[in-house]
Structures are given as C-alpha cells and as structure tokens.
C-alpha cells in the first residue's frame, strides 16, 4: 500500500510538473500542444549537461530549454497569431524528432550521480501551491487570468496581452523542462529515445481534468500515477491481457476528455489576439 502511494507520487510528479506548465499558459489563453516534444528535448539537454557537468546544472539547462521552446511557440501562437493547435503539434513533432536525432550518442549511458526523486517531487508540490498563489494573489496572476478570459478587455485597460502570454509560455515552458529533467536525471536516470512515452499528452488531459486549477492538478497527477503503477503491478498477476492495463491510463484520458464538457475553460483559450479586429 505504502509502496503504491510512493510510486504513484513519483510517477505522477513529471505529469504534475508538465501539467502545471501547460496550465499556466492555458490560463493566459494559449493552448500548448507541444508539451511532449518540449519534455523530450529538455530531458535530453538536461541529461547531457548533467552527465558532462553536474546534474543540478542539468536541471537548470532543462528548464532553460523548456522556456526557450515556450517562447519559440509564442512566436507563432502569439506574435504571428497562427493556429495554436497546429503550432503546438508541430512543436511536439519537432521536439521528439530533434531529441531522437541529437540524443543518439547518449543512448544507453547511465548517469553515475542521479538526483533524488523525492526532492524533485517535493519541489513539484511546492510549485503547484506557488502557481495557485500566483494566480490568485498577484498582479501577474490577475493579468494572466484576464488575458485568458477576455484579452480585448485586458488590452483596453492597459495590460500587454502579448507580453503576458509570452511570460506565461516561458514560465510554463520552464516547468515542462523541469518535468523532462526529472525523467532523465532522477526518475530513470538515463536517456532513451521516446522516454517521455506519451506523458506530455497525458499532461494536457490533466489540465482539463484539473479544471485549470493547480491544486486539483496535484490529485489528478497522483491518480494517473497510481493507474500507471497498477498497470505495472497487476501485469501477469491477473488473467487480463497486459495490453489492457497498458491502455488503461490512456482510456482514462479519453474518458476525462469526454466527460469534461462542462468544466469551465478560460474563455479566450486557443484564440489568437489581434487588437485591430
């Protein structure tokens, strides 16, 4: 039982971090479908720096890469007012492809001095609480929520819509990068192509399950974590094909998406903002 909870938390942590990152930009009205690719690339860079310099620096490098990729998405989704969904999907493909290509030489190399998972899991919890306070108690949080609900009104009252969205993508990208670094520096700790294994997509579903509330994301992430744990644990011990277990978290994702019709998303989610129109 205790083991189950521990594994659930440790497995839920990258989901929580990536989910918080996506949640942050979505509250500002920008959908980020690039999470999977951002995680993969930052996991690789974090591992490379961690191996050659120091794991702690690796974490910072992973976060930095995540932030840069968030800003990169912003160029298309914010400044060029491109379709956010297409831009995000392109970023996901780009990140996955680039990490596979650049990561060949690190494939199979173990990290001699991995970071403690527990510490990063604590950090994720603190970040969730911090994000909650950021949204409800700070000027930036108010601006962010305003921009996500009604960018036109926010603009009329002197809030820089594009500026707030870029900042949200950079901060959120940092958290997504941290999720990648957690995988390659603490959880695994190694680099393999495709090691994100769809976690980035589950993180996007987590945002919806959490109804865009950081504190709810904690429970959602650990719930998914528990399901992944059960999938490993029950394989072979019950007469159900392991594929059925393997599919369980993803089935839950579909179920969440189907049942979440009533959850209140930020009103301007997915809409590019253009003052002239």
């Amino acid at each position, binding site marked *: 039982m205790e083991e189950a909870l521990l594994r659930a938390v440790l497995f839920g942590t990258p989901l929580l971090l990536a989910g918080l990152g996506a949640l942050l930009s979505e509250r500002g009205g920008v959908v980020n479908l690039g999470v999977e690719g951002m995680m993969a690339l930052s996991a690789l860079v974090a591992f490379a720096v961690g191996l050659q310099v120091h794991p702690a620096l690796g974490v910072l490098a992973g976060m930095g890469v995540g932030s840069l990729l968030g800003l990169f998405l912003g160029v298309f989704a914010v400044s060029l007012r491109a379709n956010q969904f297409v831009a995000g999907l392109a970023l996901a493909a780009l990140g996955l492809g680039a990490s596979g290509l650049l990561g060949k030489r690190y494939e199979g190399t173990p990290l001699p001095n991995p970071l403690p998972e527990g510490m990063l899991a604590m950090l994720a919890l603190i970040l969730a609480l911090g994000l909650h306070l950021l949204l*409800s*108690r*700070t*000027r*930036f949080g*108010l*601006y962010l*929520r*305003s921009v996500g*609900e*009604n960018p*036109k*009104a*926010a*603009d*009329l*009252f*002197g*809030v*820089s819509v594009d500026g707030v969205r870029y900042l949200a993508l950079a901060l959120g990208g940092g958290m997504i990068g941290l999720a990648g670094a957690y995988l390659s520096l603490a959880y695994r700790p190694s680099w393999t192509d495709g090691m994100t294994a769809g976690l980035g997509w589950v993180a996007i579903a987590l945002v919806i399950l959490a109804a865009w509330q950081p504190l709810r994301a904690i429970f959602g992430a650990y719930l998914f974590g528990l399901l992944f744990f059960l999938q490993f644990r029950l394989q072979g011990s019950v007469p159900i094909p392991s594929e059925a277990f393997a599919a369980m978290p993803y089935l839950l994702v579909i179920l969440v998406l189907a049942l979440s019709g009533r959850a*209140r998303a930020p*009103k301007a989610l997915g809409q590019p903002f253009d*003052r*002239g129109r």
Partner: protein
Amino acid sequence: MGVREALARTWYSQGRALARPMLKLENITKRFGPVVANRRITLEVAPGEVLALLGENGAGKTTLVSILYGLYAPDEGRILLQGKEVRIHSPKEAQRLGIALVPQHPELIEAHTVAENLALGLDLPPVFSRRALVRRLAKLLEGHPLGVDLEAPVARLSAGEKQRVELLRALLNRPKVLILDEPTSVLTPKEAEALFQEIRRLKGLGLSVIFISHKLDEVLAIADRIAVLRAGEKVGEVLRQEADKDLLVRLMVGRSLAPPPKVPPPRAEVVLEVEDLLVPRHGFPVQGVSFALRAGEVLGIAGVAGSGQAELLQALAGLRPFQGRVRFLGEAWPQDPARLFALGVAHIPEERSMGVVEGMSVAENLALRTYRRLAPRGLLDYRIMEKEAEALIGRYGIRTPSPRTPVRFLSGGNVQKVILARELRGGPRLLLAMHPTYGVDVGAAEEVYERILDLVRGGSAVLLVSEDLDEILSLSHRVAALYHGRFVGPISREEADRERLGRMMTEGRV
C-alpha cells in the same frame, strides 16, 4: 433650410474657438486601405464641457475614439492635451495621460468579480490579497453615488450594472477626459437618466466629457456642444442652444427624413394565437405569454436585454422547445423552421451573424430558404440562383459589388437587407423580427421600416422585438414587455408611452 445653410451656422465657420481647451484634435486623418474612416477632423473640448459626437453608424465616431484611446495611430494630424502635443500609442498611455473610456459594449471579464475588474484600472502592487483590494476600492469609491457590490461576479450583473462598473473603472484614475461610446444603448430609460445625472455631476467637477451617440434626443438632453460626423468628415458643429432636431438630422443624414409613415389598422382575421406559452431557458423561464395577433397587426415587445425576448422568438421560430398552445391560421404549429417558412412564417434573427453565412456569397445567402427548388436534380443551378439574386438585389436596394461577393464584405445595413430580401420575398403571413435595425444607419433603417410596413399593408402580421422604444412605439398597434421572463401586457399603442413602457420593462406591471 438646406445643408449648406446649416453648415453656415456652425461653430468654426463663425470663427469661434475655445480659449483653453482641455483636449484638441487637429486635422486627424485615418485610412484603412482605400477607405478613409476619418478625414481632417478637428475638435476641441473644454474643462467641464460635454461635447457630443453625433453620427450614423459608419460615420467614423468609433475610429476617432479608438485613436484618442491609443488603439489606432492616426495617419495625419495631432492631438493636444492641455496645449501640449501628445502621442497616444496604447490604452495604457491614454490612461496615464488622463483619458478614460467607457466602451460601447461593456468589456468586462465575466468570470472575475467586480473588484478584480476594477483592479485592472489601478496601479496594483505585485502581490496583493483580495481583502486588501476590496478595502482599497471601497475607500476609493466612498461617497460615490453609484454603488456596486464589489465581490459580486460580473456574470451576474445586469447590463446597466456592468456599465456602472465600466464607468467606475474609468473614474478610478481621476481622468481629465471621459469618453462615453454610445453609453445608453444597453440601458433602460431610468438607467439612462441616472447616467445623465452622473455626467452632469462629473461635468461640475471640471471633467471634459465626450459623449458619442446617434440618438438625437439624448444628445440634445446632455450636450453643451454638438459635432456631427458623416462619412468620416465633420460636417458641422453647433452649440446646444443653436441646435434643434431638424438641423441635426440634416447634418447627420445629409437630407431630411420623411415623417414616420402611418400604420393602417389591422384586419379581423387572426393569424397567430398564443396561449400560456412557457419557454424554459437559463434563469427565469419565459412564461404567461398569451396574445392573438391579427392580419395587418404589429405587436411590439420591449424588454431589458436578456429578459427572454430572444428565447420567445426562437421558440416561435421553431428553434427552441416550448410548452403551451400556439396556432397559426387556425392550424397546429409545426416545430420545424423549414415547415414554418413553407407555411409563411419569416424570421429576422437577433444577430445578423445568425441570419447569414458570412463566408458565402450574397446569392447563396439569398437562396438559403429556396435552395431545394434551385437543385432539381441534386446539383445547384448557379445561373438561376444568381439571376434571382440580381432581381432581389435591385428590388431591395442591396449595395454589393456583385451577387458573388461574400456577405462578410457588406455593411451592416446591407447584410440586414439581404436577410429581409430572403425572408420577405415569398410574402410571408407572419414576420418574427428581432432588432431589425440594430446597428443600421438611419437611411437604411428607413428602408427596413418601409419594407416591414409594405408587408403590414398587405395584411401580414408582425411580431417585433426591439430594445429601441421609439421603434416599437412608432410601428406597433399594441405593445407588451418581458420582465424577468414574464409577459406583461399587451396594451394598445394609444395607452402606451415611453414612461409606461419603461415601467413595464423594469417593474413588470402595466
């Protein structure tokens, strides 16, 4: 008196100018591609003065406001604030300079509380608590005659309350110039009177107010000076005491309007019978709707926005389920928009965007009710469709480059004419019309009224829902109102006036 004479009586032609204007615009020009939205406009407003900007839709009022509020940069001309040239490149800059705006449609964040919305207009510390924010706002607003519940979510406020929030937010930064863009369009007569009181109070405090409107009566009621815009140019400027309705109409439209036409009395035959209709909706249901509508009769229905008018009309148009008895020409009412149209029920929906497919051409939109006939073997015959469209374009005076032009490129008035042409071509027995002239300029509105009256003279019945009380009072034989979904009335036109109709809308009693 012609327009030329009217112009001769204007402010600048007599060489008058303000000694120390608070705000002055000089030769402001703004182009959008080939369209000139503002051409060499010069205006000034003194401290403690209300300047009205009067003009039809599309005259360039909103563009001018957008320039003043930093949303657009002018192509030419300059802006002087207290004698000093300023460049206003963003709304934030406008606020810093002391220019505040109450936009035409409340631009509030519905999911936030009143306090959070007001906070957007404040200098906030980076970190704050909700309680401290509410305390600070309460202190700032202390003694202000317009009160609001700071902790209420905006989504629960009425249109009038939302505007009050906008006004308070505009006033929080102690502006020098306050711009009100068509502020009464969402208000009941009583709320409008309260707003005028507030404007007079602010004027007394030395604020310069720019009041934008296309309604003559309210401009004459509140303004000290009136500038009239037409087709992007300032065509005249008069002091309040020099102005009268006729002069302003001439300046605004470029000609006099015909006196409102007489509506002939209805006939005996009953077209539509509604008994105890109940329409479920979000909030109070629409209920207690009972009336009989005769051939050649217009029943006007007034109400504050959101009182259930939209739902009532949708139910009758077959778009929303209802309970109760409805009979049309003595027959049962089919709940199906296509069959209703075939029986002779036409519908002008609440919003123009609901009545047309904007990306489709004028001809295609005109064929939306009749496309089955145009496709005898399953394929649309575009030749016939466009020929029919050309005939309708001529008959209804739709200004469009060609029948193939997408509707999205047409002006609001012309889009409305497309809808009218499509709905009225078959000579319907009953017209369900909602806001038929909303956002349409005076000239086009006249044409819309003429079409509707043609129909009435021919013996059709009309159910007219509008927020424009003058429109309802000038066209209807009988009037009713909706109050929180409850049907009030109907009473005959002779018993009704603006005040009584206002009471029906806001107090729910006849």
